């Protein structure tokens, strides 16, 4: 099919080429472009107005361009300068003097298949400053976008190479919320941000974010917004530049988990035993009322042991013969494990055993140049970010070749090619029991290493169930996760018949991921793995789009500007994944382990079924932009999309938008208002679509077989017989999710062009929200239910951005920009009988998040604590509550029926922020520059689930918060019957420390974990110095800049966990299971141009 299609595509291209040889009468104009200091401007664009004929200036600022007959104006533009339009008249030589730009209205903005000047745009588009973008030192480009565009929410993590959540104008789907990413005209696979993530920041020319209905030109891909990235092309004289920085990432200081010391842990164990009454009975002959601890002895106060483990014993004194090192064995091959583990009485700092300062560096070498015949850019980037967490890192080698050839005056061909290779082992970020989480769980009395040189761990009594994160991460050193990708396109453009341009583009992304991992037999933990193992995996993803457009541009009767674009597009996504795993290897030597050398039994291999698919799409599209006197603007666009994931009868969807703009400042009556330099009022409305994350299998009812799922030993042979099971129910009528988007806004430039303001109000309504159906178990829910279109969701919000530029004198200028985004999300309808669905299930507390009609997406749901029961009277007067007792939580009786039950759960937290705010500040003083980016999220809640383990004693007696010892509810007189207890500290923050979980403590999910997740972070701060070019010349250097930079310098927050920026999925985010915190980074960098 691909071959067939490509052949047809070539037919089209050829026919385009054939008809393009028509030549019209023309003349040549030459000239020079200079800046304010009469220095030549290199790489300025000269274009013939009303056509797409263009060239760029050479190193000397000179240009030469052929002017088609009937054309009489050239337009000169260059980054940082005001665009100029010059009438040619009879001239053949033109000198152009450019003025530094103080307004951004003439910026060229890519708005989907075409580019427009900002002043002509009728939609809501955020243009991201590439300079600010580049200044964030991170290996993931989407994190660079944070705080740069209003209405764009980015939630990242400190884990090198980890993807971020990106929401444009909030969350509008339960499935795939990631925006469409278009890099040089190549569309990403649905939900895939990786083509953006791994871009080298120095290669980026511009980034635009389409936020409103105008994204309808991307039809079924536009509803979650579109991020359009254009990479650099060579221009002007041949230059070589080097950009590099080197720095160090610092870790959180102090005791970030607020952990108890070993003595405090022992005291807590005794406190719990006293509170629970698990003490020696009064009638016992020895030590009545004493606590019996296997680690800390029997008595009224704990005594820290010398050894926490010696053979099968816990709480061992140094004199015990069991601590004889000759007994020690950690090797399963040599016989039973025998550990001798000393107590670390001063306490092990597990967090800082794993998190250590780590270097980060980036080096980019770029060679580029261009003439009116061709342009090239070659760049190479080496990026190496060592994680602050042991054995996590991102190393990436990337190369880019972008070229463009003006084959004839009206024919351009070119390509963009980006290839990279990366090595990026990561942890399962924000997952319960990951390395970050385990640094919080591991008790401080446990040493990093035991007496025999092996790892220390939770093996032994009363030490919890954590697995040693240190041992795990040290062992992870040989685990690898590689990825190499090729992204790019080839394209050809032909101008003909004056007003027409045809363009064909074929581009895509090939992603190859492979890696391997080792599982070791652990001996040091409370729960150990009985076998060693090795696994290897490889996956392949590809996507391509073949896009053909024909555009027409003309101006009628001077005042009527018309631009029309029609196009056709075909798309495809494919994926495969293979994996294999073997266990029970003779040796743990990582050089020995491969898939052939393991045991014959216990091997597994296969395809990941979710990664086996091929999705095809087609689209026809059209776009019309009309402007009258540059004052009244109208844009129309439409697209018809077809996609193979939907059934034959519901495969196609029509999408479109209309947008209008009124440049009020062009009206005569406005021209007298001096402080308004420009004012454009805009509005747009459209219907966009999404396939969300509907899988390729959605329309099919299928059966399948699986060893664990449907095999059974009916033959009593020990080898199970093949069986089948209903695997999925298909739905052939599932179709596109439709987003209705209304946007009203304005762009204004005021105060002598010093202040740009952009404001948008929007409403997004999602009809036929795609949602995996949920059904009662009687339907047989072992088979996967299909996605259906029955949900509805609505977002309303406001985006505002403003930039103020000031110039104090010739030496000092500054700019300050702010962008602000707020949205209110409401789920209008959830399908199925229940009207809600729950996510974020943990086996400890059940589901934490309920998505329910009338509430925002991702809301936290559970019991609301109104206090701690203080005494028997308090319990008696309160509604009936299971396990109610003094010292435990009192829940709110939401339905006022005098009884606390399931109906009393309520929505207590909302992870959606009230607003996000980004602030960009830059100051230029002589040769110094200073910049700062701040980002904040306000009014969002975080469910700090890590506190479930830290603040409740029964959770396996892993490490606890030290504050429990003094700030938990402590009974005044334990000799009284329990029901009569009162506290010595009635204002305690924590409930009574007990040995068991109860409904009224942490047995069910309540809002104990809910915290204000607001934060304001100094994302980066930088001071640079530009050396005097005249001094540099001798060294053959044209420009040189040295800078010092600090990223994540400070964060203002009340959040008590490691970091309030907590990612997740579309329907579950802001739940902290152990999030890799971002690091404070200090860099020194240099940029050199030769």
């Amino acid at each position, binding site marked *: 099919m691909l071959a067939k299609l490509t052949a047809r595509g070539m037919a089209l291209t050829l026919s385009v080429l054939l008809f393009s040889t028509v030549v019209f009468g023309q003349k040549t104009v030459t000239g020079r472009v200079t800046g304010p200091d009469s220095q030549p401007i290199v790489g300025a664009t000269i274009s013939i107005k009303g056509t797409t004929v263009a060239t760029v200036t050479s190193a000397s600022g000179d240009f030469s361009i052929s002017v088609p007959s009937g054309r009489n104006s050239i337009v000169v533009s260059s980054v940082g300068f005001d665009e100029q339009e010059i009438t040619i008249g009879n001239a053949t030589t033109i000198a152009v003097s450019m003025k530094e730009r103080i307004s951004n209205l003439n910026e060229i903005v890519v708005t989907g298949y075409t580019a427009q000047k900002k002043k002509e745009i009728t939609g809501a588009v955020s243009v991201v400053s590439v300079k600010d973008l580049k200044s964030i030192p991170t290996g993931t480009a989407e994190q660079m976008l944070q705080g740069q565009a209003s209405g764009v929410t980015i939630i990242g993590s400190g884990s090198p190479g980890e993807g971020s959540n990106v929401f444009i104008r909030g969350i509008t789907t339960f499935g795939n919320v990631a925006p469409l990413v278009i890099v040089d005209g190549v569309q990403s696979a649905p939900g895939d941000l990786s083509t953006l993530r791994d871009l080298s920041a120095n290669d980026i020319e511009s980034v635009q974010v389409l936020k409103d209905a105008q994204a309808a030109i991307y039809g079924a891909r536009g509803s979650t917004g579109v991020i359009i990235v254009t990479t650099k092309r060579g221009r002007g004289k041949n230059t070589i530049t080097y950009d590099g920085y080197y720095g160090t990432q610092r870790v959180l200081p102090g005791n970030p988990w607020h952990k108890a010391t070993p003595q405090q842990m022992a005291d807590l164990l005794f406190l719990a035993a006293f509170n629970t009454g698990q003490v020696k009975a009064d009638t016992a002959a020895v030590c009545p009322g004493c606590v019996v601890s296997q680690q800390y002895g029997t008595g009224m106060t704990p005594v820290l042991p010398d050894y926490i483990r010696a053979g099968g014993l816990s709480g061992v004194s140094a004199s015990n013969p069991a601590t004889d090192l000759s007994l020690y064995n950690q090797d399963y091959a040599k016989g039973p494990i025998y550990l001798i583990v000393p107590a670390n009485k001063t306490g092990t700092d597990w967090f800082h055993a794993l998190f250590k300062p780590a270097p980060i560096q980036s080096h980019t070498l770029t060679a580029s140049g261009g003439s009116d015949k061709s342009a090239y850019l070659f760049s190479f980037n080496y990026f190496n970010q060592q994680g602050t967490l042991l054995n996590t890192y991102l190393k990436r080698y990337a190369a880019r070749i972008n070229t463009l050839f003006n084959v004839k005056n009206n024919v351009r061909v070119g390509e963009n090619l980006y290839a990279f290779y990366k090595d990026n082992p990561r942890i399962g970020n924000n997952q319960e029991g990951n390395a970050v989480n385990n640094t919080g769980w591991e008790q401080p009395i446990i040493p990093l290493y035991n007496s025999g040189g092996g790892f220390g761990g939770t093996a032994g009594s009363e030490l919890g169930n954590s697995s040693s994160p240190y041992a795990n991460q040290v062992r992870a050193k040989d685990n690898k996760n590689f990825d190499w990708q090729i992204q790019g396109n080839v394209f050809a453009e032909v101008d003909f018949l004056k007003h027409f341009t045809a363009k064909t583009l074929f581009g895509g992304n090939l992603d190859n991921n492979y890696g391997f991992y080792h599982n070791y037999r652990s001996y040091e933990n409370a729960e150990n793995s009985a076998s060693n193992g090795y696994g290897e995996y490889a996956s392949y993803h590809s996507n391509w789009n073949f896009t053909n457009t024909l555009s027409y541009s003309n101006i009628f009767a001077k005042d009527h500007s018309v631009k029309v674009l029609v196009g056709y597009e075909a798309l495809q996504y494919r994926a495969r994944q293979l994996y294999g795993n073997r266990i029970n290897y003779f040796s743990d030597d990582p050089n020995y382990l491969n898939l052939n050398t393991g045991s014959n039994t216990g*091997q597994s291999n296969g395809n990941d079924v979710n990664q086996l698919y091929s999705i095809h799409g087609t689209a026809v599209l059209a776009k019309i932009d009309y402007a009258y006197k540059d004052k009244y603007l109208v844009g129309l666009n439409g697209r018809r999309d077809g996609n193979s994931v939907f059934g034959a009868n519901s495969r196609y969807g029509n999408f479109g938008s209309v947008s209008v703009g009124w440049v009020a400042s062009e009206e005569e009556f406005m021209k007298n208002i001096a402080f308004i330099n420009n004012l454009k009022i805009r509005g747009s409305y459209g219907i966009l679509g999404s396939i969300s994350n509907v899988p390729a299998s959605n329309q099919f009812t299928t059966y399948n077989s699986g060893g664990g799922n449907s095999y*059974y030993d009916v033959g009593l042979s020990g080898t199970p017989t093949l069986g089948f099971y209903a695997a999925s129910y298909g739905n052939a009528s599932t179709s596109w999710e439709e987003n209705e988007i209304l946007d009203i806004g304005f762009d204004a430039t005021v105060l002598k062009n010093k202040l740009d303001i952009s404001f948008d109000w929007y409403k997004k309504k999602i009809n036929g929200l795609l949602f995996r159906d949920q059904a009662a178990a009687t339907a047989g829910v072992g088979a996967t239910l299909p996605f259906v279109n029955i949900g509805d969701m609505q977002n309303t919000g406001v985006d505002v951005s403003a930039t103020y530029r000031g110039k104090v004198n010739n030496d000092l200028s500054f700019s300050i920009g702010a962008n602000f985004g707020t949205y209110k999300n409401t789920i209008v309808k959830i399908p199925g009988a229940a009207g809600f669905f729950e996510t974020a299930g943990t086996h400890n507390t059940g589901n934490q998040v309920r998505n329910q009609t009338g509430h925002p997406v991702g809301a936290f749901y559970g019991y609301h604590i109104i206090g701690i029961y203080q005494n028997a009277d308090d319990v008696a007067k309160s509604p009936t509550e299971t396990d109610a007792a003094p010292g435990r939580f009192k829940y709110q009786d939401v339905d006022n029926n005098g009884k606390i039950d399931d109906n009393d759960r309520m929505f207590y937290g909302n992870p959606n922020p009230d607003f996000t705010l980004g602030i960009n500040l830059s100051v230029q003083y002589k040769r110094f520059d200073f910049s700062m980016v701040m980002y904040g999220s306000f009014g969002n809640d975080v469910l700090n689930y890590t506190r479930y383990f830290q603040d409740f004693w029964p959770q396996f007696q892993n490490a606890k918060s030290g504050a429990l010892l003094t700030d938990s509810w402590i009974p005044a007189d334990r000799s009284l019957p329990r029901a009569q207890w009162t506290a010595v500290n009635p204002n305690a923050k924590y409930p009574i420390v007990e*040995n068991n979980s109860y409904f009224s403590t942490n047995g069910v999910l309540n809002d104990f974990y809910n915290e204000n997740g607001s934060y304001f972070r100094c994302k980066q701060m930088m001071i640079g110095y530009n050396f005097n070019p005249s001094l540099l010349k001798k060294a053959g250097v044209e420009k040189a800049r040295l800078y010092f930079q600090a990223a994540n310098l400070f964060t203002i927050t009340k959040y008590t966990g490691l970091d309030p920026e907590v990612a997740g999925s579309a329907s579950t985010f802001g739940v902290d299971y152990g999030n890799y915190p971002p690091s404070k980074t200090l860099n020194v960098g240099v940029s050199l141009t030769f």
Partner: protein
Amino acid sequence: MNKNILKFFIPVAFCSLFIVYACKKNYLDVPNTGALDPGLVANKIGVAGVLVGAYALLDGEGSSAGTNNGPWATSSSNWVYGSVAGGDAHKGSDPGDQNLITPIEQWNATPANGYLDQFWQQRYDGAQRANDVLRLMRLATDMTPADTLEAAAEARFLRAHYHFELAKAFNKVPWVSEDQMYTAGNFLTPNIDVLPAVEADLAFAYANLPETQAQGGRANKWAAACYLAKVYMFEKKFNEAKDLFTTIIANGQTARGQKYALTVQFEDNFNPAMKNSPESVFAVQMSVNDGTGGANANQGDALNFPYGGGAQTDCCGFFQPSFSLANSYKVDASGLPFLDGSYNNTDLKNDMGIASATAYTPDNTTPVDPRIDWTMGRRGIPFLDWGVMPGQSWIRNQAAAGPYVSIKHTFYKSQVGTYTDASAWSNGFTANNYNLIRFADILLMAAEAEAEVGSLATAMTYVNMVRQRMVNTATWVPGSPANYKIGLYTSFPDQAYARTAIRFERKLELATEGHRFFDLTRWGIGAAELNPYAAHEATAGYGSMSGVTYTTGKSEYLPIPQNQIDLSNVDGASVLTQNPGY
């Protein structure tokens, strides 16, 4: 000019249209990958495979329906719902571990408890897999009437089982027939008394299944008869039950053609090397080292092993027998249990609060039923071939969960790697079958039916058959210092005595096998048995049971899972009715 436009536009437009329309038809037709089209299974071989798939969920694991809490929530042995809730054992382990079990143990689970929803989903998935056989078989053109009858009989046996599991736990539940399915949209039906339908399916299976099967893991005629008789007991149809039991005891045989009989050694019923014995009426087949990473092993019991200190596994110390159960094995001078409840007056000596390093002498004077040490590990008594049970060092959190460990679902040291899965993360993935019904269970139910409507003498004979096995000293734990004693009943003076004796015998014989709670509900004596039990356990040192109450009229059944009530909403009201008291 116009000519040029035409010259250009016509071919371009033509090409574009050509691409759009030529491709449209098949470019977007992408076949599914990685799964079977229904047409490929709607035939004799396919239906046979789907039937195996319906068996495959007997082990409580494998369904993708509701897996949040792990296979322990859906274990075939019902250790949580039958034994822990029934007072045979405590949850065990650390109090915080799997703490959703705690409210079930305390008979106050809320409808939102994730264990219940998962159990519900898994059993209904099993029922629908059985229904898939009945549906697909109608589409198959290569099946003879005999083929379909056989397939239908096995499928209906399984469908009855899955529904019965639900009825035991939740009482009234929806019945799902082969006509109800997701695609038809008719799967929401009220919860009703499904036992008549279960009975009908089992009667059909009894009538149409062969006496023996080439594949011994399948249900046969007699397995269906036994299951049917068991259902009669739950329906209190004692006459029908008695007659059927009489037939079964006279003629019943396993699918492999072995006449039903008690094994000589009691412990063989729980030994993976001796499984599918003549006592095994119908068992859930477990297999290991079969390439599935332990997925066909007895995963539901994988947490229930002595913990650490050189014990069987490093996981996870759940399912620790109760003080009361230990006390129940105390016998009087004639080797008979204390039917008056006095067994709990004092606790059998145990090592609560005594470190493994501290010397301890197990009780060697108090006479106890020898079955105790095949049921629960006690300090100082040999534990299978693992050596003498060392006490605290095999217990995860003795202060919180007591001094005992359970035995019946475990394995021998010599079986590591052969009857345990070598590819799983723990040795706790075993090939130990779960006996859904074993012949001792049949004898005791038969005794019960006789006592209710027939002859007390016959009832006593059946009880004594079960006890007789243990009289043989060769069946006692070798090398045990305990003072074993067991005697036979000499008379059942009246019906009340017979009932008490038979019920007590079920507790002793079938302890930790997942039956107790359902029996108590069936007998209507939950509060009478369990409230004193809770009080005793709290006193003995199991803090979780303090202040816990079994409420008559409520605690007999688990609440219908809230999630299912919510999902069964039709026009604003749920078709499901919540159980009383919740």
